[in-house]
């Protein structure tokens, strides 16, 4: 069977991907290209005393060696501009780039790195969150007060940003509560871990540079190149070939400016391909470690009356896109519950760890894990079934949540019942097995996004979008929207994407925004073409344009489908030779959604078109070893209307599996200096096919007033929220002891079963 015989939901990039002909960034080869390598600090906290690259520059075959002295002296990053391309006076984490080389081969590039003289005086590493915010603590950024600050970013010392939620009077309500439960949860850092290590290729033509790169957000990468190298936007073109996964880790720009600068200095194309070790230690997109203290008071009926929380998030050395993390974490610790009195304080703390940044639903797996584990502790304390406790306390349509947001039509209650029923909640299980339940939530974000659509004279159609396809299938879904507007088959439409030289700006593949925002722009651009075709058809068919219907590749008069003209012919009759559409989402009026945040509002104080989920997992624990296996996951999601069912199920299955990895095995281990000890795929263990459980997915498709196209909300991050909490609740139900650290490794489960403290052991 040839590819062209494929049914409806086959992804347009699929044939490339199954035949090996699709090009990813590392597959690019440009004539004369050089090999790039970075010199990393490897030490986590030090003052640089000597950096001499002359010997490296003198090696035959070395075309460029760059340090901070060779690029514009610019600090960048939204929130706090704390970052430079290369280390200047000091280094703050092991993966900080000290110098970059471009050479004729891998070997010569390595020789150049070895020839760089890099000397430093080590400083005590700042790696303990509580010590870092204590009075008199040494600062990761002694000059932080001189940095440019943007947005609502309250900061002080090692606290990079600070956010709080305050509603009612939590202290008084807590003192009147019938039962009060207090917990402390500690989550280790983890990683996005796409299977494709990142790669960048840069080539200059005169004063213009084209950068091929594995970014999820090409426009952010372009903006970073422009800012760091002082270039205008019209001289920088970012093209992302096929992306080998991102999971947030490839959001924004990373190493594009370094490679563009190397290529300019070397006067040759330059290519960087990361090793797996570099993929672990160098990017500024690690999932942050957290310490979460929560106290909740309930009344005699089991209704939550008050919650207080104190959250510390490990930001690492530099702010990446993490300015919103404290607020997002606070939202998760509040949770999708009705709580009249809340006080949650949340701080993002500078340390000498790798920087933290967006990883699929940032702050959610850890925050949700903590609060949902805590929720089961409350239920146990008052002797109530965990499902019943959630029934009594979750937000439903019309209720007011913990930040004062009133919810329109939402389906969390339906998710709860569907997942519990699917899993057989309450049925007897063997002694070493148990079910655990967790609910979760995640916002949909409004962002400006644009799209162009073109119908050429021959009737063929291009949709040009600033969206990015990191694998989810969401860009593939965009042509379905355009096809419906135009009354053609989606296979008649070619997508142009991941090219800042061709497309209008947009948020790429980030924040589950592709369908929600880019989808809306694509619909509007296609509709503009449709309107022009209708005008041409009206003339041709001697009818009113308002009565023209586009379907099956034809324009016809409503009610008389036999009076029609092929759309292809109309395209050719356009006086301009082609028909153009250009649309953005900028003029869409979004409803104001108010929430309560006292400090540090980065847009997370309330959630537009919030997505809800409930996961019930069945876990089997080996009581001799503490090894836990997830046997089944029953997921129910309210992500609004589902437009592409195959892709949607794929997102739930992938997100849940990532969640199981984070629950059981994926934790970054550090040595005392803050260097990663398990920066490899044997030591940092992802789920394999042999580990993966049976996943049953149900969607609650309800009308959402402020959702995206056809009532669709976001989707791809939501499945990575609730799983860790459900796994903890199942393990705890099976062993009768609770785990307070994430991931819940075999050692930690075994230690809890045997009342052994691993710290003391």
């Amino acid at each position, binding site marked *: 069977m040839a590819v062209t015989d494929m049914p409806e939901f086959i992804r347009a990039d*699929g044939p490339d991907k*199954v035949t*090996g002909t699709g090009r990813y960034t590392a597959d690019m080869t440009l004539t004369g290209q050089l090999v790039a390598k970075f010199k990393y600090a490897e030490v986590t906290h030090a003052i640089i005393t000597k950096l001499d690259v002359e010997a490296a520059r003198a090696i035959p075959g070395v075309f460029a060696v760059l340090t901070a002295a060779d690029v514009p002296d610019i600090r960048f990053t939204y929130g706090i501009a704390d970052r430079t391309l290369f280390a200047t006076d000091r280094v703050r984490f092991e993966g900080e780039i000290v110098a970059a080389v471009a050479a004729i081969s891998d070997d*010569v590039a390595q020789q150049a790195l070895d020839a760089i003289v890099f000397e430093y005086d080590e400083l005590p590493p700042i790696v303990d969150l509580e010590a870092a915010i204590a009075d008199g603590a040494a600062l990761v950024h002694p000059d932080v007060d001189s940095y440019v600050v943007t947005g609502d970013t309250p900061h002080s010392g090692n606290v990079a940003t600070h956010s709080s939620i305050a509603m009612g009077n939590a202290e008084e309500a807590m003192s009147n509560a019938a039962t009060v439960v207090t917990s402390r949860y500690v989550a280790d850092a983890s990683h996005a871990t796409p299977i494709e290590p990142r790669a960048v290729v840069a080539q200059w033509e005169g004063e213009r540079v084209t950068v091929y790169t594995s970014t999820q957000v090409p426009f952010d990468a372009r903006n970073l190149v422009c800012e760091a190298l002082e270039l205008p936007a019209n001289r920088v073109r970012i093209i992302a070939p096929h992306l*080998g996964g991102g999971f947030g880790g490839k959001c924004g720009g990373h190493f594009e400016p370094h490679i563009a600068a190397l290529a300019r200095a070397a006067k040759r194309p330059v290519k960087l391909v990361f090793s797996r070790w570099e993929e672990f230690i160098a990017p500024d997109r690690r999932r942050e470690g957290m310490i979460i203290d929560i106290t909740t008071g309930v009344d005699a009926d089991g209704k939550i009356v008050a919650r207080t929380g104190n959250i510390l998030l490990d930001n690492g050395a530099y702010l990446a896109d993490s300015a919103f993390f404290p607020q997002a974490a606070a939202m998760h610790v509040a949770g999708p519950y009705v709580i009249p009195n809340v006080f949650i304080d949340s701080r993002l703390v500078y340390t000498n760890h790798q920087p933290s940044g967006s990883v699929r639903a940032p702050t959610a797996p850890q925050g949700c894990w903590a609060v949902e584990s805590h929720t089961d502790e409350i239920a146990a304390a008052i002797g109530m079934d965990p499902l019943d406790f959630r029934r009594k306390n979750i937000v439903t349509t019309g209720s007011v949540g913990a930040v004062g947001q009133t919810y329109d039509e939402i389906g969390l209650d339906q998710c709860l019942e569907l997942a519990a029923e699917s899993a057989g909640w309450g049925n007897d299980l063997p002694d070493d097995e148990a079910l655990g339940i967790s609910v979760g939530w995640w916002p949909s974000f409004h962002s400006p996004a644009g799209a162009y659509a073109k119908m050429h004279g021959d009737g063929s159609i291009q949709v040009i979008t600033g969206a990015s396809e990191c694998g989810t299938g969401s860009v593939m879904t965009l042509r379905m929207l355009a096809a419906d507007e135009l009354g053609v088959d989606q296979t008649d439409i070619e997508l142009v994407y991941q090219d800042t030289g061709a497309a209008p700006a947009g948020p790429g593949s980030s924040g589950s925004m592709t369908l929600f925002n880019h989808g809306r722009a694509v619909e509007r651009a296609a509709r503009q073409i449709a309107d022009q075709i209708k005008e041409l058809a009206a003339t041709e068919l001697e009818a009113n344009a308002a009565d023209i219907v586009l379907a099956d590749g034809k324009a016809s008069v409503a009610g008389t489908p036999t009076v029609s003209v092929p759309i292809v012919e109309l395209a050719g009759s356009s006086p301009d030779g082609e028909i153009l559409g250009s649309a953005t989402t900028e003029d869409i009026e979004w409803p104001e959604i108010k929430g309560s945040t006292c400090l540090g509002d980065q847009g997370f104080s309330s959630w537009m078109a919030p997505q809800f989920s409930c996961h019930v997992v069945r876990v089997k624990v080996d009581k001799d070893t503490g090894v836990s296996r997830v046997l089944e996951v029953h997921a129910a999601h309210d992500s609004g209307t589902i437009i592409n069912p195959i892709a949607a199920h794929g997102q739930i299955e992938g997100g849940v599996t990532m969640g199981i990895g984070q629950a059981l095995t994926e934790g970054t281990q550090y040595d005392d200096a803050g260097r990663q000890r398990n920066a490899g795929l044997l030591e940092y263990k992802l789920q394999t*096919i*042999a580990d993966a459980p049976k996943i049953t997915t149900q969607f609650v498709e309800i009308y959402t007033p402020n959702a995206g196209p056809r009532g669709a909300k976001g989707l791809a991050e939501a499945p990575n929220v609730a799983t860790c909490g459900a796994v903890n609740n199942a393990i705890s139900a099976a062993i009768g002891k609770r785990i307070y650290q994430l991931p819940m490794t075999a050692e930690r489960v075994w230690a809890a079963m045997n009342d052994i403290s691993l710290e003391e052991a």
Partner: protein
Amino acid sequence: MSTPSNRTLNAVELQVNGVAYPVAIETSRNLSGVLRDEVGLTGTKEGCDDCECGACMVLLDGQPINSCSYLAVQAQGREITTIEGLADGDDLHPLQRNILAMGGVQCGFCTPGMLMSATALLERNPTPTEDEIKIGLSGNLCRCTGYAKILDSVAATAVEIS
């Protein structure tokens, strides 16, 4: 450490997807790098260079190997099959067709290696149980799919071809 001037190159002929490719390579070169950079077939991916992820899986005389950790010179005289050799002209292999139709492809970076492992599995065991499929593919990491649709597509292919 080798430099351009003291490299010793070996003249090797690699038989890849039925075509003979003469290449001049150092003994230390791994097969995945030679396939990608010398032979010009970039469908074989490199995700870890350490036998951890399986993205570089190719068949050597029908046996799946991690080509990142196999010396290219050792492959001389043996039949190498890469993802580019799986389809029969324009006709996709049933595994390719089914993994695509059933949603087992997302980012696609693990897909070539996954398909080569699955091909080897079905060659030696055309009627695998679910557990046998899991064992056969356990050396291939996928971060996108959660494996469910990959598993289904291999099972469906087994039914189709047996």
